[in-house]
């Protein structure tokens, strides 16, 4: 397909760009296959705006006489307005934008066309290999091994080719366990706590069904990770009733008789459209122009955004507490094990492991616990707060995770090597990017798309020294301690840099 077919009016002059808090600018608008480009074309102080079509969440058009106005609402929550003279030009441009921002095929996305203007020092696609990570682990304990059982993605389509499992469990057993777990996501190692040798594993729900099916191999695997006399906690991210209901659909939860050393804790964390609704309501609340304090507070409350932040952060703290304070190992899962599970395992690591609070360590965490672990970025980040698509699979799961990290950064401003800008950048790139990192829903899809060969990794760009300095927290001092954030409502704040400042631009 040629992009040119979709662009009837590639260029319009005398267009006026309105952005909040900034004076309106007149200039020229150009459309390309992937960008909307606006330039004031003034010699002295040329202003340019480059907006990826894939960043556009929704557009509205209206006319006053022959002057058309297009309001563009972005996935990163920005809003801009363009006044375009000429009805035909405006209609053409609007329909082009609509078409170009909703391309079906991933391979038509910008990352496949983007040619970097910088020299790649270290290729981000190979910067965080599981084998390298495993070397560090192996130096501490010999109870774990790498398995390549999923190298062709046949056992678990959402897992990476290589995962870490208990040494005592052979591939044959793993194969049987995979059948017993939702989506084949058998229990794998997520984190090893150096201080006391406790571990955090993640999986998906067991397929016990209504008649209480059990799997001896699953029990063997899970029980084998605890030494004699040790305790472990299974953190189920669903409420007990939700877990019980899941049995009717073939899912379920671990019955404690078969996992005698483990105790189950239900820590309910919301998912899917409830989260998307929450983001939409939060944006609406900020959009309220009445300047009425009571209305703002009740809308903020009704959005439930901070409740979700508190729930997720609390669950992360709970997992960390079990490991560090109770000297117990932890197994985390919900239903699929690709959303709330990952929020919890990654937050717990940030609390426990100072390495995760460095830039490099945080990147590694995102790669391990989100990208390789199969968080379906492409589905979850397909649309943002302004779209009316309301698809079940759209949800700001990753944005909520970043918000939780920001809450910790806010409470421990000297313990993180990165700054708020880094988190905001990750948020933006997860929704629309010139890099291929967040394309696809799992490693299987990424390998089919040949992303490492055909696109540039976000990390290749971020990790250049001159870019890196923008993401550094000048107050950082390595802090080897566990950091316990406060989750009291009085301690939680709306994430200004990530949400509020972007939303404020609506006013």
């Amino acid at each position: 397909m040629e992009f040119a077919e979709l662009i009837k009016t590639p260029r319009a002059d005398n267009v006026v760009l309105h952005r909040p808090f900034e004076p309106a600018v007149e200039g020229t608008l150009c459309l390309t296959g992937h960008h909307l480009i606006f330039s004031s074309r003034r010699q002295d102080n040329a202003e340019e705006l480059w907006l990826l079509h894939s960043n556009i969440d929704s557009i509205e058009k209206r006319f006053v006489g022959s002057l058309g106005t297009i309001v563009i609402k972005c996935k990163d929550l920005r809003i801009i307005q363009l006044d375009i003279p000429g009805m035909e030009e405006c209609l053409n441009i609007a329909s082009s934008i609509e078409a170009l921002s909703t391309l079906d095929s991933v391979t038509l996305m910008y990352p496949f066309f983007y040619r970097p203007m910088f020299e790649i020092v270290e290729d981000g696609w190979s910067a965080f290999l599981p084998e390298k990570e495993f070397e560090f682990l192996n130096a501490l304990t010999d109870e774990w091994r790498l398995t390549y059982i999923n190298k062709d993605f046949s056992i678990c389509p959402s897992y990476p080719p290589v995962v870490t499992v208990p040494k005592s469990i052979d591939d044959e057993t793993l194969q049987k366990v995979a059948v017993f777990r939702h989506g084949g996501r058998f229990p794998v190692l997520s984190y090893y706590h150096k201080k006391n040798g406790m571990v955090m594993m993640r999986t998906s729900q067991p397929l016990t069904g209504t008649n209480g099916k059990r799997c001896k191999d699953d029990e063997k695997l899970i029980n084998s990770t605890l030494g004699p006399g040790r305790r472990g906690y299974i953190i189920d991210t669903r409420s007990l009733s939700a877990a019980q209901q899941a049995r009717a659909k073939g899912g379920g939860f671990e019955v404690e008789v078969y996992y005698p050393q483990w105790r189950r804790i239900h820590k309910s964390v919301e998912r899917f459209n409830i989260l998307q609704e929450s983001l939409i309501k939060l944006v609406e609340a900020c959009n309220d122009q009445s300047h009425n304090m009571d209305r703002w507070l009740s809308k903020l409350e009704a959005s439930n955004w901070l409740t979700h932040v508190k729930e997720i952060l609390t669950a992360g703290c709970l997992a960390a507490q079990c490991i560090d304070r109770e000297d117990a190992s932890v197994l985390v899962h919900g239903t699929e094990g690709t959303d709330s599970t990952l929020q919890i395992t990654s937050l717990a690591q940030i609390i426990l492991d100072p390495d995760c609070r460095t830039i490099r360590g945080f990147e590694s965490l995102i790669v391990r616990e989100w990208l390789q672990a199969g968080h379906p970025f492409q589905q979850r980040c397909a649309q943002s707060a302004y779209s009316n698509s309301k698809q079940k699979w759209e949800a700001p799961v990753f944005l909520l995770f970043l918000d939780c990290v920001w809450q910790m950064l806010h409470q421990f401003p000297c313990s993180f090597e990165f700054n708020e800008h880094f988190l905001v950048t990750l948020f933006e790139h997860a929704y629309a990017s010139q890099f291929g990192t967040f394309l696809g829903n799992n490693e299987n899809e990424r390998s089919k798309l040949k992303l490492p060969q055909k696109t540039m990794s976000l990390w290749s760009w971020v990790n250049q020294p001159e870019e890196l300095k923008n993401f550094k927290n000048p107050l950082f001092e390595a802090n080897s301690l566990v950091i316990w954030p406060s989750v009291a409502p009085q301690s939680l704040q709306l994430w200004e840099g990530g949400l509020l400042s972007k939303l404020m631009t609506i006013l």
Partner: protein
Amino acid sequence: MCGIAPIKYSNVEHVKLLDRFSTSNKSLTGTLYLTATHLLFIDANQRETWILHHHIAAVEKLPLTTSGCPLVIQCKNFRVVHFVVPRERDCHDIYNSLLQLSRTAKYEELYAFSYNPKQNESEQAKGWQLIDLAEEYKRMGVPNDYWQLSDANRDYKICETYPRELYVPRTASKPIIVGSSKFRSKGRFPVLSYYHKDKKAAICRCSQPLSGFSARCLEDEHMLQAISKANPSNRYMYVMDTRPKLNAMANRAAGKGYENEDNYSNIRFQFVGIENIHVMRSSLQKLLEVSGTKGLSVNDFLSGLENSGWLRHIKAVLDAAVFLVKAIAVESASVLVHCSDGWDRTSQVCSLGALLLDSYYRTIKGFMVLIEKDWISFGHKFSDRCCQLDGDPKEISPVFTQFLESVWNLTEQFPQAFEYNEAFLLQIHEHVHSCQFGNFLGNCQKEREELKLKEKTYSLWPFLLDEQKKYQNPLYNPSFSPNLTLLEPNTVSFNFKFWRNMYHQFDRSMHPRQSVYDLIMDMSEQNKQLEEDIKQLEAKIKRKSGQSDVVLLKEHQQSAHPAPVMLKTPPCFKKDQPLIPLNDAVRTIEGSNTADNRYSEFMEELSKAEPAIVSLEYGVARMTC
């Protein structure tokens, strides 16, 4: 504080101090001491909790439990402590003693009259002279061609609650002043609060007119005319009634009310709708109930915050100040502000208006002057509002707290514009209620003079200035917005936040564990020191360059054994070493100094038996199977 010996007969052992927010009733065990001025609790780790009797707002004895008799003490600085005393008799004794000690009948029994900071008389007198309001009016540019000092109230004859020295328009003669004062509630006639030199516009303040439904007073009308004529830039003036319109109208039935625009020439009348002291008192009560709830959910917190109306009130106060500032800065119009008696809402709006207009009030000294002028001298009833003496509970109201909170909101919005930090605001709040210093005692200047406070007590301000390092904002940039000193805050709702450090000042688990400000402060302090060193060393190099090598060598040998005087500057440079780049120097010191202190404290915090942040038991309670 440490000088006070605990009274022997009144210590109780094995008292438990409960964690206010712990869902599992965690506690510390220790001994409770009652002294003449403080209640002191020393826990097993020898950590001390001091509570000034004057800070106690309420003591409550709860029903007996198996572990003892619970005693809950609420303080005016929003500390809440929950003791469990093993024996009911002891609890009863403490309860009764505290009731007595926290309710003072006479000013002379307040802590300020016994507090002795070991200063001699001249130091004491000098302390009281630190803030000089005559000097402040001079700084504003009065007296001038339009404004003069009036001696009408020299003996407090016209208005008891005003200061002796008042500035009025030159054209306002004494009969006009007297006549106007008779037409104003409590005799509080219109006087100058702030003069804007550049705009030649004034903020004036007064109380409501005794207009009833139709009464007029020619002198009062002349008075307002004199104020508008004293402004050559704009002959119109605004009259801001800071009350909700309904309240003002209701006052007419009692012979009070508001200005009728038809009777006054060239005025624009405006209501701004700040609620009265009773609404504010119950609003704060509701806020504290919500924020004190154990296991609070986000939604309960937000709906409680909304229902309390607290942030709405803070926004109303700041909105009023913004309105005032616009009149002056945009229209160069003078503004007359009043409420009912002109000592609560009027003080809030006038002082915040001046703070937005004049960067001087955003300095440490300037803020003291502002409080001294608009609050203390103009008779904000600190004694009644803060319940210094056992009195009418209906007079208590957090009006001054709201002022501080409004300022705090501004410091959050303009982090570079203020020389002082949050700790300064909190410390002032602490001492407004502590009755340890004389400044805030009593309700007006006349009363303070009668109490001979300047001889018998000490002023707070020199003490704050002495430790001003603690109160400095490291981000302060005096040249912030250089061409205009005006602050234009955005009062959109989401800019108002719950002031956690005020209402949970003593609930340490809720606060960020690392302070950016402390770190920056230390670093900039180190920077200054190093720059100083560089200068000295460069000066030395210059001096040396003319001398012979032999001398240089000698000097070098000498410096190997530095004289005691030399120790004052950190021996971080060797003579023969080139100057270390500044950044590296900061790193070195940062690593070895500030961080160690902070983290050791931090580590202590973490090594506590219970992190209290996320309770595992809470999770376990939900376990099933």
